[in-house]
């Protein structure tokens, strides 16, 4: 064979081999990247649809929080995704919503269903049918069941303690516990006098803890000292009902705070929930309902209108300024040690006006019972 002829075409073969290898590698990469992009795009529209449905439900909650009677349908446009939201009041919708065989009965009163359908890249025709588009699309449905809250809180005394054997620590004579109805401005209230301190059993054990000079510091019905047996209250149930309404929450297990708890000056109450013990220091004013899952210490100046619930000890500690409550106070008592400490300038007065203010202004909110996504 001619050696020159045998060398012909080697470069071409090399070039073809190399090019083929590169084309295969590039093709493999292209397929992988394309699949990745497809998955990412679908994941993105799914997430957009989910977020849109959640946003629609949140929007409905915001509307209901300012107008608990709100009903109807609306759309939320989030630029690229949308949410179609319907708000239905079960009270009088003519449907057996809770599947008990009865329509619009008491169980369905004040119940609200929010349905939010989030759509990403989905378009409906005028009949509500999905138009088939050649783009990736998704939808997600969020269903929220709500209940309107109607408060009807009442007090049968100024200070309620769930245990007739509770240990009180009364120090000095600068305090006053009054069951006489007192308005928030200090004037006489319209209601008849209630006991200053109420408990579920024989009050003799509490009365015996008052020194002779302190007995006229607990006034009201039957006093002084105005300490009486009152109706047993299911405090835990009441507290559990109120907790979801809290707009200010302390995470616990032990928190300290100084400042406003609601707007006392403008009589705008809020619900405050401490998920543990709470120390109120400095200068604290408030209006509304304070719920404490533990002990509560009042160390500084304290001025509050409304109702205080505590599942632990109540300690009004001396020094730091006066402590004033207009409304009512309820406690289950401490796990150990003194249940209630009254030390220093403490002024606790039953106020039907403050309780009515709380009932009126905090009623009509909505409580989330169920939140599901389909």
């Amino acid at each position, binding site marked *: 064979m*001619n050696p*020159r*002829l045998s*060398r*012909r075409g*080697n*470069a071409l073969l*090399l*070039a073809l081999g*190399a090019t083929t290898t*590169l084309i295969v*590698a*590039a093709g493999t*990469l292209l397929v*992988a*990247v394309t699949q*990745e992009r497809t998955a990412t795009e679908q*994941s993105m529209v799914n*997430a957009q649809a989910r977020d849109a449905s959640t946003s629609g439900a949140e929007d409905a909650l915001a509307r209901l929080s300012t107008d608990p009677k709100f009903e109807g349908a609306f759309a939320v446009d989030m630029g690229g995704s949308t949410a179609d939201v319907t708000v239905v009041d079960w009270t009088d919708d003519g449907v057996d*919503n*809770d*599947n*008990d065989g009865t329509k619009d009965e*008491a*169980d369905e009163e004040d*119940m609200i269903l929010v349905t939010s359908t989030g759509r990403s890249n989905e378009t409906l025709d005028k009949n509500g049918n999905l138009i088939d588009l050649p783009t990736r699309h998704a939808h997600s449905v969020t269903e929220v*069941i709500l209940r309107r809250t109607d408060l009807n809180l009442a007090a049968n005394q100024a200070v309620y303690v769930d245990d007739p054997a509770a240990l009180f620590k009364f120090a000095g004579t600068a305090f006053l516990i009054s069951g006489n109805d007192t308005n928030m401005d200090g004037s006489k209230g319209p209601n008849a006098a209630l006991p200053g301190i109420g408990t579920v059993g024989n009050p003799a054990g509490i009365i015996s803890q008052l020194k002779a000079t302190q007995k006229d510091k607990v006034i009201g019905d039957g006093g002084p000292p105005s300490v009486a047996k009152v109706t047993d209250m299911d405090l835990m149930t009441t507290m*559990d009902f109120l*907790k*979801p309404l809290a707009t200010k*929450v302390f*995470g*616990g*297990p032990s928190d300290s705070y100084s400042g406003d708890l609601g707007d006392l000056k403008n009589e705008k109450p809020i619900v405050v929930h401490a*998920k*543990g013990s709470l120390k109120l220091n400095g200068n604290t004013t408030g209006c509304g309902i304070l719920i404490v899952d533990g002990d509560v210490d009042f160390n500084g100046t304290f001025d509050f209108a409304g109702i205080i619930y505590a599942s632990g000890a109540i300690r009004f500690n001396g020094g730091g300024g006066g402590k004033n409550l207009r409304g009512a106070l309820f406690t289950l008592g401490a796990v150990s040690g003194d249940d209630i400490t009254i030390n220093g300038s403490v002024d606790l007065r039953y106020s039907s006006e403050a309780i009515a203010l709380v009932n009126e202004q905090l009623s009509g909110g909505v*409580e*989330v*019972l*169920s*939140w*599901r*996504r389909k």
Partner: protein
Amino acid sequence: MNRRLQRGTSLLEVSISTAILAFLVFAAAHASSVAISTADDVNVRDATTGGERRNASRFEGQLLSVSLSSLQGIPSNQGVAVEPMLEKVDYQELQFRRVVGYEKGAITYEPALGTAAARLYRSVDPKSGYGTLVLENRGQSSTLLSDVRSVVFRLVDSTLTIEVTTGSGHDAPITRTTNLVLRVP
């Protein structure tokens, strides 16, 4: 020699073209290598963030409807006793019930009240030593994540934090944190 045989390429031309082709092939191979390496790096990063997204999506799917008051757990490093979940305490196992509707005047739970609560916990294979994150509900178990080194559940306000550390198979173990706001009291 016949002139026809002298046509074609000279040795010098073949050498030059081979050198150019070799350079181009090596350049292309190097570029491909860099591209593959970069794509691999991107895939690892994407797997990390994608893993977080998938974890969050998985946990959200399981826990979105969970009732806060139903949460219970076994504290980390403290035996096996189940307790109602406390705030800011680390738990190694989570037990819960979802609110799934309102029937006959009452909230309905899944699993139903009176039956065992759903459990989310790390199970360890005694042979391999590998851990998996397991969801146990109504007597059935399903694996949510594999190669799980540790898991911590923590509640702060209404936010449930889930910290899962997994072996990545690539570099050091990765800890992914998912925060879920629980809306149902």
